[in-house]
């Protein structure tokens, strides 16, 4: 079965979406990624969508779900590399990509991810759970 590869990079997981995803493939990625977060005890996930020529409501929803699921599993998500034309179209489509952290490229994404993890840890310390 066709799958999108998930790479382990230190404490992070890196997913580079390079194919035009059909819906089933997007759902498989959701399952695979959540399993890998737990397996590697990853605290951060980078999703590189620079090769994606469109993000429609299904893919957008999939990205938002991954971010929510990862958060429940104690991992932060940053989506990187969105093409300008995709950003313009998403806003016009009316897709609320709220709650999704983005960065321009993988490098900036890593910095954002470290910041987000640090913030989450401090939150956890303050409330005494984590």
């Amino acid at each position, binding site marked *: 079965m066709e799958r999108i590869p998930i790479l382990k990079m230190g404490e992070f997981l890196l997913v580079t979406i390079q194919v035009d*995803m059909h819906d089933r493939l997007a759902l498989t990625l959701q399952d695979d990624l959540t399993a890998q977060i737990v397996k590697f005890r990853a605290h951060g996930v980078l999703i590189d969508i620079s090769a994606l*020529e469109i993000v429609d*409501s299904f893919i957008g929803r999939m990205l938002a779900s991954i971010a929510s699921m990862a958060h429940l599993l104690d991992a932060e998500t940053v989506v990187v590399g969105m093409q*300008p*034309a995709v950003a313009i*179209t998403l806003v016009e*489509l009316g897709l609320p990509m709220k709650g999704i952290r983005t960065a321009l490229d993988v490098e900036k994404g890593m910095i954002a991810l470290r910041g987000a993890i640090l913030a989450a840890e401090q939150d956890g310390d303050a409330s005494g759970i984590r």
Partner: protein
Amino acid sequence: MRVVSAESMEIRVSDDVVLVRQAVRKKSIALGLGLVDQTKVVTASSELARNTLDYGGGGKALLELVENGTRSGLRVTFEDQGPGIPDIQLALTDGYTTGNGMGLGLSGAKRLSHEFELWSKPGEGTRVSILRWK
């Protein structure tokens, strides 16, 4: 309006939605649309193709390059023989859905297009057509 070229595609499985996206991309490049306009028409087509599959139980996409005087455009029509839409006004409302989507398909596709037409009859099916001028 004159139809310059037409291509019909079946939408039966989720892979067909991907094929429709790719065919629409090809046509919009042939028309000479810029990258942002290409992305808009491909995204709108993706939403409607998924609707045809998920709500209409499958159907057809018709891709047409059209001309109207000096203007040229790309029209994509989606047709199914599914259950139809009982309340079109409601179906065009942002966030309204009978499925498990986000309810942005129809309203979003409309916003992304220059012209939008929707015909539906309960029990007979649905036909949605979008047009983007160059």
